[in-house]
């Protein structure tokens, strides 16, 4: 096995969760940026949210252009943090379905491994509820692919994954988190632009399409932008309180140190 374990920083984990919980109707996906240590542990520092060009069910694939754009982003992060960062894996969500990767997922993962044997895959399963016990569930798993012995098919290999605590949210993760509304809006604009260019539509149909765009954008604002803004404001409040408390604690400790 090329990879022994995956360490996912908790602020990157936060962004993945935000992304996975943003929609229950389709699978979302993104790329993981980080580094592989000599101990063969993949350390994920941040994630990049991606647009899905093929929205068919369970066809979660990354285009070469997206991979290239992500590599550029990784270089930018490397410059910013001074550490050798690169794209080390991908994640996607399984809303309402089991956390285990499908055959397509395993094959896709195998393909990425051909380019980089340390490439890892993460899956977040959410919006699962056990109706009997009214228990909701969110699961996450990490896997790689290996060629099965009996056939030419690929098999899943489980990779241990741990969320590494990080008390403060990194700049990169915050930037990734606020990209989501922008990406959603871009997707909507692109779709609308294609529709709008169709010349043979009568005015009523055009009005209809324009209203669909308005409706979708309103949905995005109330379901994503709004809650995101609220969370950011709450976090700012929490941080302000923490800073005051930490300042007081620091004063106290300085006095204690001076007394010793």
């Amino acid at each position: 096995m090329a990879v022994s374990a995956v360490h996912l920083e908790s602020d990157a984990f936060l962004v993945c969760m935000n992304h996975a919980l943003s929609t229950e109707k389709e699978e979302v996906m993104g790329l993981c940026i980080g580094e592989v240590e000599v101990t063969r542990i993949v350390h994920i520092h941040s994630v990049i949210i991606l647009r899905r060009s093929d929205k068919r069910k369970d066809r979660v694939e990354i285009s070469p252009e997206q991979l290239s754009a992500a590599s550029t982003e990784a270089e930018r992060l490397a410059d910013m943090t001074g550490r050798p960062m690169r794209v080390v894996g991908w994640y996607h969500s399984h809303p309402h379905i089991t956390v285990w990767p499908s055959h397509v997922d395993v094959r896709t993962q195998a393909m990425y491994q051909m380019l980089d044997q340390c490439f890892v895959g993460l899956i977040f399963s959410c919006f699962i509820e056990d109706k009997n016990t009214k228990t909701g569930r969110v699961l996450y798993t990490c896997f790689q692919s290996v060629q099965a012995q009996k056939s030419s098919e690929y098999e899943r290999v489980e990779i241990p994954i741990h969320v590494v605590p990080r008390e403060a949210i990194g700049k990169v993760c915050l930037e990734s988190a606020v990209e989501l509304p922008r990406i959603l809006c871009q997707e909507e604009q692109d779709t609308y632009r294609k529709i709008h260019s169709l010349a043979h539509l009568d005015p009523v149909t055009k009005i209809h399409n324009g209203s669909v765009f308005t409706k979708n954008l309103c949905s995005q604002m109330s379901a994503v932008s709004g809650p995101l803004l609220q969370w950011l404001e709450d976090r700012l409040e929490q941080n302000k309180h923490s800073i005051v408390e930490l300042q007081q604690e620091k004063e106290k400790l300085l006095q204690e140190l001076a007394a010793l």
Partner: protein
Amino acid sequence: MAASISGYTFSSVCYHSANSNSDHEGFLLGDVRQEETVSISDTQISTAELLQIVEIHNHDPCAQLFSFYDYAGKVSEENLNSILKDRRKKVIGWYRFRRNTQQQMSFREQIIHKQLTQLLGVPDLVFLLFSFISTANSSTHALEYVLFRPNRRYNQRITLSIPNLGNTSQQEYKISSVPNTSLNYAKVVKEHGAEFFDKDGVMKDIRTIFQVYSALQDKVQAVCVEVEQSERVKEKFQEDVNKLKQQIALRKRKTAEEKRLREVQNADSRSTPEENTEPPEASLLSRITFHAPSAPERPSTSPNPPSYTDLLSQDDSLLSSSSPPTSAALLPRPQAVGSPGHPTPGPLGMGLAMGLGLSLGTSPNPVTTPSTPYLGNGDGSSSDSLDRQAAGQEDDDDDEDDEDDDEEDEDSSEYENLVSETTHLQMVSASVLVPGRPAALSPDGDARGSQTT
């Protein structure tokens, strides 16, 4: 009754819980409102049903356990007020995150809940329980959550929904118009429909709504920048506080060591002087240069006796001369009840325990650990596999499921691999904590003894 929580608040609770090396708890702030649904049935003209909706807006995490209650479960109103301050009015419930435990309220949680209900004056106070379990090899983790309203006699569990984008389908765009050859239709629609379009032929609404979206996104960016700055400031202060704590601990140890040295020298000067008068402990401590444990490190905000973290740093320096740990040693172990699944410097610590000669003769593992993590369903039953059938699971995933049952049946023989490469350390004082058990394990024992220790 229905309840909702935003995806961002939910993720934030998960984030705080992941950062915590013990149980984590906090308060839920929000609103309870009533919705009236009117229905008509054959027997009555209209029946109005009142549906209570619990909306969780935000959570207020507690920095430590036992911050507003004591070990007997008695809630202190004073501490509660100092934690909540003016947010007290918005409290509609509280939450708790625990690892490897049952999806039921523990006895202490129940009595705390009763007191909170009274003190906060919220008759239908809710309790959100998060329970975290992992597979034996830590490759898959599950976070289960249940919302209780313990003050009711029936229907104590409520479904918690997470509103999301859901059904914003782009399939609703029409790519062709319904064919119509009526000239009147075309004329009327064109004439009156022109109101909707501006001179470029673009719908006015599009521009307007896009402006709303842009303004909102700009605001999000601006607040994000502020948050980022506050995170850095907070990080800096936390670093300073940690450094000061370390310095204080070091200073205290030095003075204690000097005091011991003086006492020993005094005692020795009375008897025959020997060549090597330094007690082994003092020599060890003086040789070791204090340095912080390497990442992943735990924040020192938990009520941790300082000797544990000091001990780990001693391990690092002592064992640095030995061969670097193999990847097997770095592989995480299935954890004891209440401890997180993250990679603590467990193997090194366990080696230390071996050297201490603590009563660990037969078992290499100082803590009894379940061979399979608890996999209950919350109603007292349990299932064998972590891979319980999720609602709406697709059939083509069934092949993958079989593999899991094998993993779950692994026994704890993995532990034998652990301590092979550790050295034996002789001279540490017996007051050292048994390592391998991360700090501040929740002592929140379940009275029904459901924890699998």
